[in-house]
Each structure stands twice: as C-alpha cells, then as structure tokens.
C-alpha cells in the first residue's frame, strides 16, 4: 500500500451486529485517490442507485484521504458519503476537525456502515479494535452532552462524530457533528437522518498510532517548511476574524443573500454580523482543525441577556449568511444561539436558515399564520429564528414541516410557496448569490449534491484567485458568460481532487495551489503525478458521481436554479443588475464535459475516463 494510506477499511453491518476489516483496494485508490473520490465506486457497490436512503440498505461511508493525518497543511479532514434522503441524489459532505486524523492514526482509512441496529448503538474505535456498544443512555441527548458522556465512557482523548435529536427523528436536514463543542459538521443533504435510520448515535474514535509516514519524508518535510510561511501569511485574515470576516465583503459585492434572496443591500446589518463585530463581543477563542495553519474556528460565549448560555463553536460565514442575513436577523447573539442549537440538535445551518427565511416569506404572504408557527415570523426576529430552529431540530409544530426541506415544505404549504422555496435538486442554496458571480449559477445547478458552493467554488475565480493549472491566468469578469462553462467544469474537477486528497478549500485562499498538491501527493505516496494528471482524476470522479445521479433519474431537467435567481434583480448594492444566463452557460458546460444535450455523459466520455464499467 502506498504511503499516506492505512490500508484497510472497517465494515460494519448493524443488522447483524458485526464488523470486519477489508484491505483498501489499491487499484481504486490509484484511480480515485481517497475521500469522496474513492467513496464514489464504494457507494455504487454498497448502495447502488435506487437504494432507499433511509432503509437499512443505504450505506454511510466515512473516508479519509491520503493527506489526512499528515502534516500537509489543512488536511485534517474526512468525508461522509451516502445516498441523500433530502435530495435523493449522490450525497456528500466534508468536515475538518480531528476525527479524520484520529481515524487514520487508529489505523483505518474509513468506515462503511450498512444495516439497522435493533436498539440505539454507537461504534467505539480504539486503534485497531472496534466495538458496537449500546447507546440507550445517550439516545435523545444533544450533541454536546452526548460528546461529554461518550468521551467519559470511553476516553477523554477520543473524538466523536454524533447525531443529535434531529438525526434520531429522521429530520431530512439532519447533520453529523464532529469534535463536540468545537463543532465541525457534515451537514448538507441529511446524512444525520441516514445515521439515525440505522439507530447509530455516533462513532467515537481514539487513534494513538503514529502519523502516516511519507515515501519521501525528508523531501516532504523540506517542502512544507519552505511553503508554510507563505500559507500562514495568506491565511492571516481568516485566522484573525474567521470566515465571518467575509460577511461585509460579500454584502459589498452583492454576494450576501438577503431576505430570502429579495434584497440587494444591507451594509449596517452585515457590519453587525461581521468577524470584527464577533471579535469585539462574543469571541472567547480560536481553534484549529488537524494540521491546519490557518485556524479559522471561533469559540464564542453569550453570558448575559436573552441568549445567555451559548458556549461553543461560533457561527461561520455560511451560518451568518443564512440564519442571519437571509432572515434579516442582525442580532449576532441570536444567530450564535441559532447556530449552537443547530450544532446541539444536529442540523445543517445552511438549509435550516433557508427554511426559516422561506417560512418568514410565507408568513409575510399569508400562507403561514401566527397560529401555525406559535409566534409572528417577522423578518429580523431573532425570537422567530431561534424558535423555528428548536422546532425543526425536535421535529415538532411547523418545524416538522420545515425540517423536510423547503422543496417538500412548499409542496405541503401550497399556493405560491414553491416560488419562495429556493433550492436546486432539493438542496437549499448556500450563502453566495449567483447574481453577483455568474459562474455560481452553473456551479450550483450542476453540483452532484444539489446547490453547493464547495463543489466548484467558482466565484473565487471571478474575484481575485487565479489557477494557471486550469487556464485561469487572471480573474474572470463576474458578470459575463465567456469561458464559464469550461472554467466551471475544470474547477469542479479540482475541488473533487481536494475532497479526495483532503485539503480544505480555505487553503486556496491561503495560497495552496494544485501544483503544491501534486508535488505533495508524489512525495507522500511515491506515486508520480502532475497537476494535469490529478485534475484528470478529478474529472473521472465528478463524472462517476454524475453517473450515480443519472442512474437515479437525474438529468438536464434537474440542472436548474430557482426562477428568483434567474429573473429577479437584486436592484441595489454591488450586484444590482446581475442575472446569470444559466441556459447559455449550461450548453457550453455540457460540451466541455463531453455530455449529451440531456446532460448524460456520453459513452465516449465514460470510456475515455475508464468508467464504462459503471
């Protein structure tokens, strides 16, 4: 087995209450690297397209990448892959923290869970030993409390990955939360509901083994030593004020979503939610994920007032942009409270905030009443925000409807509600407005898990980031379509590589390049590669995920964006007049991908990528 890999995967069958180790398929690791790339062929095998997401047949795949556990910067990451119960598509999430590092140091590349236990259980992994234990005592606990209880029961040095009440109650927006109070979350698409359907409360890992050694250890050490100062310098702004520092800049450029995507400018509100405002009020500390040199994690506490008691991971940019600005809530402490509730109950902050904004618009338009919600759902109301989050996490009241995601909720509420439900393939939009960066429309529409900013992260190339390895030598004009189809496809390929090696996307902001990644992959594993070769693997990975979706019935008809994004201008602010021409971009994109007009990878494309067996 190449260096960087542990060489084995833990398989768990909860129906049979048994587990066993299987060697990592070397050939697959060469063709798909690791992480969500390697998870693609595994999901085909363990949960073929068509598998009912909340049935025992679905698989929940936790995978590290070859970089995980090493000192390669920002590599302390892992992914969770499953068939999504929210979107019914390929489901994929990534998280930082220390859980992936612990798993690798315990001697495992990943864990594949199938089946359904007869009673609540958790999985305890201590180095090479695994054990399925009863979880009756912690079933019903929120994530922070269960983290404390299970680390007391196992090892204080252990790292947890847990669902909260939302996952237990099969809320379709349920997440899996890692690292307890320093929450790092795999959230999008409802993986927590899949875990809950298996009666699996969590996976607790203690890894005391050495970090993976490198094939060319001395050269890798020297390389990292030379590169780290620049990466630290590039990540300084993120370290100083966290991802929240992006809020005011996003508002300035028209990127920050406001009032369920209906408003164009909100500078005063954004300033109240900024990283600087956080630093001056509720910030208590910072934290780093494994092997990170940036340190964007925030610890916050609210000690007095209406939202007193908040104590844990602070809101990230996406949480501020959805629980905050999308609902016009400018009370930072209320947003911190809502974020903590999402972490404790195990909810995706992006989809949850989007569902609250959707409900507020339904209330404004008379489709939801005060009696339905239990209180007025006025724009900007922190009380309404926090109340609805609690309802959603506990699957009660109006929250039970909203917890099924805006697409389903709109169908249940009826009337014009579907117009207020902003999603693609059933996944609520993240907090970057495609009217401000046109490529985001195409990137969201074609993302395999539904509207996702991280599958392409293309707006950074319409801003100031360059990536010569994919032909972006200078930033592109954000309000034109020229060259965007090809750029989006190439960027998605790169992001797929990062999700497979395990490199944080924030590493790009700090200056990590594809050339760096290729060099580090060679030095670590001994496998000779190049940026172009890695990107070609990324293309293979993206296409295989697409094939999974095609086999689930998805095609061009689903590569869409909400009408509001395509037809309603923001009207003011930094992107007042922008409307992304998605249809025009889509044709260029399919051509660049080698897909048919219906968005299906052609036989020639699959053969070229070595995917004709799928």
């Amino acid at each position, binding site marked *: 087995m190449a260096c960087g890999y542990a060489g084995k995967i833990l398989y768990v069958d909860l129906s049979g209450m048994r587990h066993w180790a299987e060697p990592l398929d070397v050939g697959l690791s060469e063709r798909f690297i690791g992480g969500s790339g390697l998870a693609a062929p595994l999901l085909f095998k363990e949960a073929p397209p068509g598998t009912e997401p909340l049935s025992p047949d679905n698989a929940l795949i936790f995978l590290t990448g070859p970089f995980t556990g090493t000192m390669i910067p920002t590599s302390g990451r892992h992914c969770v892959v499953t068939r999504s119960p929210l979107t019914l598509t390929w489901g994929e999430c990534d998280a930082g923290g220390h859980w992936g590092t612990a798993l690798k140091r315990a001697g495992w590349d990943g864990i594949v869970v199938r089946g359904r236990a007869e009673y609540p259980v958790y999985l305890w992994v201590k180095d090479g030993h695994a054990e399925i234990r009863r979880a009756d005592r912690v079933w019903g606990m929120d994530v922070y409390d269960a983290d404390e209880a299970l680390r007391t029961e196992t090892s204080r040095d252990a790292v947890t990955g847990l669902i909260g009440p939302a996952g237990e109650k099969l809320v379709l927006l349920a997440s899996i939360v890692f690292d307890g109070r320093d929450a790092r979350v795999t959230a999008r698409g409802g993986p927590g509901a899949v875990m809950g359907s298996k009666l699996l409360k969590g996976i607790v890992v203690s890894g005391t083994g050495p970090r993976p050694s490198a094939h060319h250890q001395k050269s890798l050490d020297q390389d990292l030593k030379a590169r780290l100062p620049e990466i630290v310098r590039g990540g300084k702004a993120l370290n100083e004020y966290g991802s929240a520092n992006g809020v005011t*800049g996003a508002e300035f450029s028209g990127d920050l979503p406001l009032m369920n995507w209906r408003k164009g400018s909100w500078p005063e509100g954004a300033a109240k939610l900024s990283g600087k405002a956080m630093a001056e009020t509720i910030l208590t500390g910072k934290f780093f994920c494994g092997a990170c040199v940036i340190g*964007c994690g925030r610890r916050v506490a609210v000690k007095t007032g209406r939202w007193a008691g908040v104590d844990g991971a602070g809101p990230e940019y*996406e949480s501020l942009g959805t629980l905050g600005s999308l609902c016009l809530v400018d009370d930072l402490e209320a947003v911190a409270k809502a974020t903590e509730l999402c972490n404790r109950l195990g909810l995706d902050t992006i989809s949850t905030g989007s569902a609250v904004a959707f409900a507020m618009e339904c209330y404004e338009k008379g489709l939801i009443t005060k009696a339905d919600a239990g209180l007025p759902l006025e724009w900007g109301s922190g009380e309404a925000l926090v109340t609805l989050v609690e309802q959603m996490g506990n699957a009660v009241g109006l929250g039970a409807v909203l917890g099924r995601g805006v697409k389903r909720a709109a169908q249940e509420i009826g009337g014009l509600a579907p117009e207020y439900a902003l999603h693609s393939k059933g996944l609520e939009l993240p907090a970057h407005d495609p009217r401000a960066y046109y490529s985001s429309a195409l990137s969201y529409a074609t993302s395999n898990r539904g509207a996702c900013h991280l599958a392409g992260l293309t707006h950074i190339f319409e801003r100031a980031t360059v990536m010569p390895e994919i032909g972006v030598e200078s930033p592109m004009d954000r309000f034109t379509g020229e060259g965007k189809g090809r750029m989006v496809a190439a960027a998605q390929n790169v992001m797929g590589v990062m999700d497979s090696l395990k490199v944080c996307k924030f590493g790009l902001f700090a200056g990590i390049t594809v050339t760096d990644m290729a060099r580090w992959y060679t030095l670590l594993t001994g496998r000779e590669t190049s940026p172009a070769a890695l990107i070609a693997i990324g293309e293979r990975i993206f296409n295989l995920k697409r094939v999974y979706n095609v086999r689930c019935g998805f095609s061009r008809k689903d590569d869409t964006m909400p009408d509001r994004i395509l037809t309603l201008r923001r009207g003011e602010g930094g992107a007042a007049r922008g409307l992304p021409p998605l249809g025009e971009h889509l044709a260029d994109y399919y051509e660049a991908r080698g897909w048919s007009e219906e968005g299906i990878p052609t036989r020639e494309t699959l053969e070229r990528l070595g995917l004709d067996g799928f």
Partner: protein
Amino acid sequence: MLVRISVLLGAECKEEASLELEEGATVGDAFRRAASLWSSKWPAGFYDRDSGDFYGTLMVNYRHASMGDPLADGDSVVLLPSMAGG
C-alpha cells in the same frame, strides 16, 4: 525615481486607479495611499479608519503579500475583502 502601480479593490477587481510611489515603496505605502484616497467607499469591516488596521487580504500580482513587501514598477496591488465559504 517613481514606480507606477495599479490598485484594484476586491469584488469587481476593476482597476480603481494607478498610483505613483517613490522607488523602494512597499505594499503598506500603497495601501496607506489608497486608504487616504478611497476608504470612504470601502465596505464596513474592511478597514478601520481610526487604527489603520486592514481586515482583508493583500495580494500583489494575484499572490498573497505583506505590508512590508517591496513594490516594482507595473505591479498590481489587490485589496480584497476576505473571502469565505465554509
């Protein structure tokens, strides 16, 4: 002798203006000149006028830079509101 540089401010990354600075000028010199000219148009939280602190990302020719880095004739300085995503 003077060096002539361009300064681009985030988001649109359109050329805001060119500046002429003394030879040996640093990124910090360019930043302070830009702030004195245009900070009234900058987004909240990007720059603290009282302390002079800058909360964004500095780049020269699209590579990360520090305030102390020297500038050469024709350099392009980008003052970028921080990007976020996660």
